């Protein structure tokens, strides 16, 4: 059963087609990798699914329902969560309060419950001392907070947009474990990454985007040896 299905998504910006007939299925409780060279349209794809952009053409189905015209906040409440590459924590709020925004509005809980849930998610991701100020956090903690915030909206489908960027070897290992932990909760995950090791370890399948089109689909081993994919990343042989 597909949690989310996109049908021939086309998205124009001015004269440029950032996405061209992208049809992808997210199967229940899988971890789907979304990879491709820079500018391929990976984040745009997430933005279209999350409702930040409307597709120029094409449809999006979430659990069988056509959500193509729904506004972003409603899609969040239905269960589509996502993280952002550039995280700007809310000033004046503590760590847990930043996460609380997700449980308050994405899940619609009352303040006390929302805080409890937020604290639980912080613990789940091994974020210590969640009542502290947001001004002194390591890069890893910022990413964890961002993921906690998305988890607090109680998503059925979660998009992780380059969460491994800028992490060292140990931190990447920890993050991989956390993603597995999230996955064990029954959440379907779409993960955009440049770090191939992560894709290889975590994903069941991959989708490769290049110039806004899907050029390959399948398990990592198959996709990584596909000549089209190699060309896309490395360029043509002269």
């Amino acid at each position, binding site marked *: 059963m597909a949690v989310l299905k996109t049908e021939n998504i086309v998205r124009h910006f001015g004269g440029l087609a950032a996405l061209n007939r992208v049809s992808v299925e997210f199967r229940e409780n899988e971890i789907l990798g979304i990879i491709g060279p820079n500018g391929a349209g990976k984040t745009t794809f997430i933005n279209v699914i*999350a*409702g*930040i952009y409307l597709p120029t053409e094409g449809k999006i189905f979430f659990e069988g329902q056509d959500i193509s015209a729904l*506004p*972003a*906040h*409603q899609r*969040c*409440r239905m269960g589509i*969560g*996502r993280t*952002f590459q550039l995280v*700007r924590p*809310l*000033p*004046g*709020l503590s760590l847990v*309060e930043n996460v*609380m*925004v*997700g449980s*308050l*509005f*994405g*899940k*619609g809980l009352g*303040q006390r419950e*929302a805080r409890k849930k937020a604290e639980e998610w912080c613990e789940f991701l091994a974020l210590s001392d969640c009542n502290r100020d947001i001004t002194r956090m390591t890069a890893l903690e910022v990413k964890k907070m961002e993921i906690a*915030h998305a988890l607090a*909206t109680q998503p059925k489908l979660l998009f992780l947009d380059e969460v491994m960027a800028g992490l060292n070897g140990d931190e990447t290992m920890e993050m991989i474990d956390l993603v597995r932990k999230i996955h064990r909760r029954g959440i379907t995950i779409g993960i955009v990454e440049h770090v191939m090791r992560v894709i290889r370890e975590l994903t069941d399948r991959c989708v490769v985007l290049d110039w806004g089109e899907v050029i390959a689909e399948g398990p990592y081993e198959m996709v990584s040896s596909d000549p089209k994919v190699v060309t896309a990343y490395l360029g043509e042989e002269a």
Partner: protein
Amino acid sequence: MRNSRTLLYILILAVLFTLPFYTGVYLLNVMDIILIYMALALSWDMLLRSGQISFGMAGLFGVGGYAAVLLHLNAGLNPLVSIVLGSLIAGALAWLIGVAVLQLRGMYFAIVTLALAEIFRVIVRNLPDLTGGPEGTVLPSAIFSGNSTKTYWLTLSVAVVSIIASEIFRRTRIHFALTSIRNDEIVAKSSGIDVFKYLVFIFMVTSAIQGLTGGAYAHIYGFVSPEGSFSVDFTLLPIAMALLGGMHSTWGPVVGAVLLGVVSEFLKLQIPYGHLLVYGLIIVITILFFPQGIVGTLGQRFRKYGSR
């Protein structure tokens, strides 16, 4: 800790409430002005917390004033009732405008609000049968027959209402929504916040407060006029007060209103023409050098000392 704070608030409120019993009429009248501007400054700050600026306070203030006066004169309603209704009318107008205009934010919204005072002024001038035209309308008697104690209690109530509203905006989920929207609308949307609805709601509530304040002012001074009720004073001073005291807080506008209110009384006597210059300067200087305002900057200093 919380209990001693509540006790402090009750004490302050008691002192303020009983002020008429041990001070003279002049001080009460000065307090009236301070409290009116305080309410306006708070309402402006509340919208500011969402990241939007309204320059339309004078407009909604005047609408509330005219509505309150006209309802009282033409429909024979009790002055207090007409003040409340005036507030609701201002809120309803704000809802209409907000729904139309808040899809585009930032400078588009700000400039539309800037035009509001002018627009309402033109409308009022062009319906002379209803509004008394360019000369305005005078009430046969001011509210409470000009009793300064009751008048003071009225303005105190209006200010307390705005303080309560401001605190509600700070302690409930509205605070989280506002902070998130202000920080980044796209992230806010992705957290499940219906940004448009929140903005319209906040604009409506803050405009209702401005209408309430305008209604009270109109009944206290006993008249409304196109020039007086929509005067740019009612936009300029509250902004200067909120900026000076410190944005995004309840106590910032309160402190700013008290400080500048007192200064204003002084200045009006010394410099009859152009004393508003000070407020413009305050805005310019605060934006350039003290984005946190007085309360904010002091708050930061205290926090630094506290962490040592």
